[in-house]
């Protein structure tokens, strides 16, 4: 079977959808974080697929940046998780809504 860019795009789309759905419906803060990572990696896959298709390195460079930012995001997210847990003794994101207007 010949793997075309469409295959990559479908996989990427599925990953992104799963991630997005996870962000929307899961209650556990950690799971939400992981879903966000899933979305980021779906984007990376997309970027690299197009980079390959167009023979342009820009896409790969971008994905490296995305990975870097994702690392920072994960660090901050985990720090937030810890402080959230310390305050509320729970990781349920619906509990973390004290700043609502």
């Amino acid at each position: 079977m010949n793997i075309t860019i469409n295959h990559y795009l479908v996989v990427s789309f599925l990953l992104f959808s799963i991630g997005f759905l996870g962000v929307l419906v899961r209650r556990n803060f950690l799971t939400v974080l992981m879903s966000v990572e899933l979305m980021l990696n779906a984007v990376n896959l997309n970027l690299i697929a197009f980079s390959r298709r167009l023979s342009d390195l820009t896409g790969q460079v971008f994905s490296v940046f995305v990975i870097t930012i994702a690392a920072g995001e994960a660090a901050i997210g985990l720090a937030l998780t810890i402080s959230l847990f310390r305050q509320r003794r729970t990781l349920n994101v619906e509990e973390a809504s004290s700043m609502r207007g």
Partner: protein
Amino acid sequence: MRDLLWLVPVFPLLGFLVNGIVYLASHRTHGSGGHAPGPGTQPEAESSTAAGHPHAHGHAETAPKWKTLHTVVGTGSVGLSCLVAFAAILDLGIGPLSQGAHHVLTLWRWIPLGVNQATGQVPGPLAEWVVDFALRLDSLSALMLAFVTFVGFLIHVYSVGYMGHDAGYGRYFAYLNLFMFSMLTLVLAANFLLLFVGWEGVGLCSYLLIGYDYHKKFAADAGKKAFVVNRIGDFGFILGIFGVFALFGSLDFGKVFSAAASQPAIYAPYMTVVCLCLFLGAVGKSAQFPLYVWLPDAMAGPTPVSALIHAATMVTAGVYMVARCNVLFRLSPDALLVVAVIGGFTALFAATIGLVQNDIKKVLAYSTVSQLGYMFLACGVGAFVAGMFHVVTHAFFKACLFLGSGSVIHALGGEQDLRRMGGLARKIPITYRTFLVATFAIAGVPLLAGFFSKDAILAAVFESHFARAPWLPKVLWTAALFTAGLTAFYMFRLVSLAFYGKFRGSAEQEAHVHESPRSMTVPLVVLAFLSVVGGWIGIPILRGGDRIGEFLAPVVPALAGAHAVEHAPAISLELALMAASVAVAMVGLFLAWTWYAKGEGRVPAQLAARFPRLYRTLENKYFVDEIYEAAFVEGLAKGGGRFLWEVDATVVDLIPNGAAAGTLGASAVSQAFDKNLVDGAVNGVADSFQRGFQLLRRSQTGRVQNYALVMGGGLFCIVAVYLIFR
């Protein structure tokens, strides 16, 4: 054998790895070991005089089997590297080396800046812009290599005895081996960048070893101070390297120097800036005047470290670098003038401080700063050979002096204050005799090592010419001669206070006094021997006596039109200069002997009482530390913030304040208008908005997932609209 040159730095590196790993592993299993500061050692942190002595902390010693391993690996690796170094030098041959034979061993291409790796083709003007990881053995590096490895090995052996009771034995040897690795990289480097790597490496090891007793605050602070002050110098050094790279398109010593020598007219205009930048690096590393303040504090490290790093090897790296770049420096008479003035001033300045210090290691530290000033003075007047000669002889006698002081400190169980010593000559005879020999060597007693090198420098200074300041050589020569007298004085004061007269310490200390073990006395004897014969490689007057000058000739060539000081001065003049320096040294020795050994310090005490302000200034080291503290630490770091705040409050705030005044007037007018007409409209609008947003407020649930859902839905809508209506 010459292709095995890479082994020279690699042996100590392996030693560092083995010692470090074994130390970490054994201390994990043996508990805290020397890590946690025990309660019993805390009071010592307050006294800055009890630095670096071997009995400082009585923690569990390293287990015997590991200790043997540390000893064998630590000293053995340096011994092997010493053997390989000598074999490589002999393989090239001393004769051929002095005729310009050199060996460049390229290990790998380090930074291929200008080579297109895909095709191997060279793209245009960047052709030469590569930096190789290459070692260079020529007469200058051979000279350095020989004494660095040999003195280094002796000091490693000495450390076995000196640090024997220390809990951090393995850590100490790991650092010391790492230092040897860095220093040998520095010496053998074939380009500026690799030199810089070694340069930073020795700086790091210096920091680690000064702060070896890191649980004492003053030691940790001294380490930090050394590191920070050296950064200032390194900043200049790296700027100088950039300059060289920009001008020559290469960092390789051979290419840069041959280009500079063949086309001096092209490069000369830029050389003042480049050389001054390079010299700033040397000022930091070799503790010259504005940046010398770290070296006396560095005595907080263990005494063998002071001997190895802060006397014999690392601090001479600056002199080595300047001598290495002599081709560049000669193109700039102005830069040389600065080098000479800084060197001469530092020599005199540090010697005067050394006169009144009471800590045995502090005296030696200021003596080192002063002697380094001598070396730069020699380089500054164009006598690079004399400078390097003094580097070598100084390494021998100053290492011997430091190790001797370590032996004294060891005998007294950690006492460093000269006022509590005395009468040690009979109790520790080997230490006393070797110390005395080295003292005579540094004082310039005829036929000992220091005599010849100091004489070479004095003669070169006397004969030098400065187009910009014709009076300068005589001033520098007078200062250098006076410094020679001061050197003889403070060194013999040290000997008198420590070894003659009555013992002034406690009875407990007196009972404890003992000669050091063999591992410490043998290096002392060897170094004392070298302090006697070390100068015989550069005897003036005699035909063919100046071996070191001939040896270094290919690296330090005589350039036409530069300072013509390399030629031998007339014999009668040479003898007269010698007589002058010997006379001055003898006066210094005699005064110190009568005042301190026979007079037991009555005359100096009277002098101190007669000139209290002068004495206080000297004792407090001209208040330079206090000035730096006020100017840079307080002034820049703290006062700078306040200054900016003041500027902000007075100058910058004028604008908003003025604007505010104007606005106030204008608003008074508009207020009346506002209140009646506008307010009605505004209130009406506000009420309607309030009601509208009362509804919208419900959407602010505070739940991130709701927001994400809305975002996703919105995105979906936009894309859908786009797809349908495009």
